[in-house]
């Protein structure tokens, strides 16, 4: 699904990723943990195609180099990034936005665009799975949403767009236990042998609910250790400084 080899990324001449390697196969869920400033969010941005980064190394998604592919095409090809801080978009109705977005992705895949009725049916089904109040969907996108609502809305978008590779950028931060469980349920119910996940997080908390296949420790722009769930537990006990 995703092959990253010796990936380096810098912004404004500041090196952030310094030779990162990771391979994610279809059906796998990888977690990346790391202290503040280790390059976790940069990795998420580089994968989604955000402008402004100088990049070298190999970055392949489904066998194709991502480097020259613009942001929206990556999304259309099935890469989804759940934001750490979802942006508020005043005046844009959440509902309409979700439909526009879905139809862009469907169109790119060569599928038929969904009409309003079929879309609303899908939306109702997915939002009730996540326990999202329908009223939220008629509001302006992320405007005035609580922290939990914003993150749930990200997961709802993931559910609707049905991507092949999902990157969760600290989706668990700032959530209460119930919201955390909802997010985890959302992820777990989307997992199958074709779909891959990259979960970026500070804490073990979310991982307890979603059982990653692999856990990596990112520090100073490199993966310094890889393992499975035990590694996350060890980190939680000892802290990042002791892992080397």
């Amino acid at each position, binding site marked *: 699904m995703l092959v990253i080899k010796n990936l380096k990324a810098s912004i404004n001449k500041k090196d952030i990723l310094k030779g990162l390697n990771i391979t994610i196969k279809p059906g796998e869920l990888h977690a990346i943990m790391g202290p503040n400033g280790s390059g976790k969010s940069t990795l998420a941005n580089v994968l989604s195609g955000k402008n402004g980064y100088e990049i070298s190394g190999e970055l392949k998604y489904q066998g194709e180099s991502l480097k020259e592919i*613009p942001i929206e095409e990556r999304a259309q090809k099935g890469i989804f990034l759940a934001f750490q801080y979802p*942006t508020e*978009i*005043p005046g844009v109705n959440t509902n309409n*936005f979700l439909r526009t977005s879905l139809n862009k992705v469907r169109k790119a895949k060569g599928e038929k665009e969904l009409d309003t009725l079929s879309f609303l049916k899908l939306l109702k089904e997915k939002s009730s799975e996540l326990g999202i109040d329908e009223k939220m969907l008629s509001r302006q*996108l992320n405007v005035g949403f609580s922290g939990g609502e914003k993150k749930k809305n990200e997961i709802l978008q993931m559910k609707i767009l049905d991507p092949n590779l999902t990157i969760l950028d600290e989706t668990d931060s700032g959530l209460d236990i119930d919201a955390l469980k909802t997010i985890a349920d959302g992820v777990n119910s989307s997992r199958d042998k074709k779909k891959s996940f990259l979960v970026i997080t500070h804490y073990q908390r979310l991982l307890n609910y979603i059982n990653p296949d692999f856990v990596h420790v990112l520090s100073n722009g490199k993966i310094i250790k890889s393992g499975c769930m035990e590694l996350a537990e060890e980190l939680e006990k000892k802290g990042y400084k002791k892992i080397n």
Partner: protein
Amino acid sequence: MIENFKINSNEIDKIKKISKEERDFRINNLNFFNEKGFPNKRQEDWKFSDLREIVQKNFKKLNVNKVNSKVKKVNLIKDFDHNYIEVINGELKSSNFKYEETNKIKIKNFKNENFLQESKGNPLICLNHALSDKGYHIEIEDNYKLKKALIIYNVFTEDLKENILNSRNKIKIGKNCELHTIELVINDSKYKFINNVYENIILENNAVYKNICIQNEKNDGYFHKFSKNKLSSKSKYSSFIFPSGSKFNKLDLEFNLEGEDSECTLQSASFLNKDDHQEIKTNMNHLAPSCKSYQKVKNVLSSYGKGVYQGKIYVKDIAQKTNAYQLSKALLLSDNSEFNSKPELEIYADDVKCSHGATSGNVDEDSIYYLMTRGLNRKESVKLLIDGFLSEVVDMIKSNSIKKFVRSKLQRQIHGY
């Protein structure tokens, strides 16, 4: 190039049936205009919109003669039931109030009554005083609430060419009345022309007036409107304006809150591009206690679009418990677009709540990034953000059918971006 554009007084003699008094008044105003000419940036009110320069640059000559246009049938909108009047090049041609008790509504052609009003030194108002001889005059009898909205089809014909039109409209809404109007500008003109309007709107006690003005087709017209609005006690005035698409458009709006507990709301959304030049100037005069006013002006500007908002709130010493608010927001899409905002507060009462705000800036890159990660390309993302920015105003319209209609008009314009 027009240097020293002057109008001969025999133009006034072409206007039929006027008294000596009225003739003198018109001559005086014409002399004032001929002496001052089109206003330029040296006048404070015109510092962002130098009309003299604009006229000199764009007109070789100007024709004050009446246009006798053959008008094809106006395409009435079918989106919702409505009463209507048809106004062609400023002249009232027909009216239809089939949903109403017609004895409650008076509609007339231009009338010279109440004519002798001061012009406050604006040469364009003087020009209008001197030459206007057409327009509509609507009066709603006390205690009558219209059942359907009134659409004013304001048509400009294709044979207009270097004409300067002067018209004068008046709407008087009686006590406890309610009137909703939608002014729809239909511009078939192919050449440049100037339209200079004087408007007078009077709300008697407890009257409710809601008005939506839609003028957003691309055109070669140069527009100036002075609007004088009187709000009596407990009256409510709400105005939505969606102007854009003109080479020049200045709306000079004066609201006089003369009666206690009156309320005035003005909201506008404009998309200005390709050399559009537009100014909204307001004078919100709080002249009595416990009145409320609210103004929100939103502009999106691109490719040499220029926008101006000069909003003044005046609070007279007796106007205690005033609550006045104004906000201007501008979104600039290109380096060559320009927005000027000049808020002014002049307050002589001590127990008031007055506030204003103004922001202008580029489209937020984080928002564009967010939308692009959801499969929209850059242009689609920017369009969606513009749409959202302007929709905040449209969303405040209560009637769903009218809201839908306005939205479709606005979206067509944004899609041209």
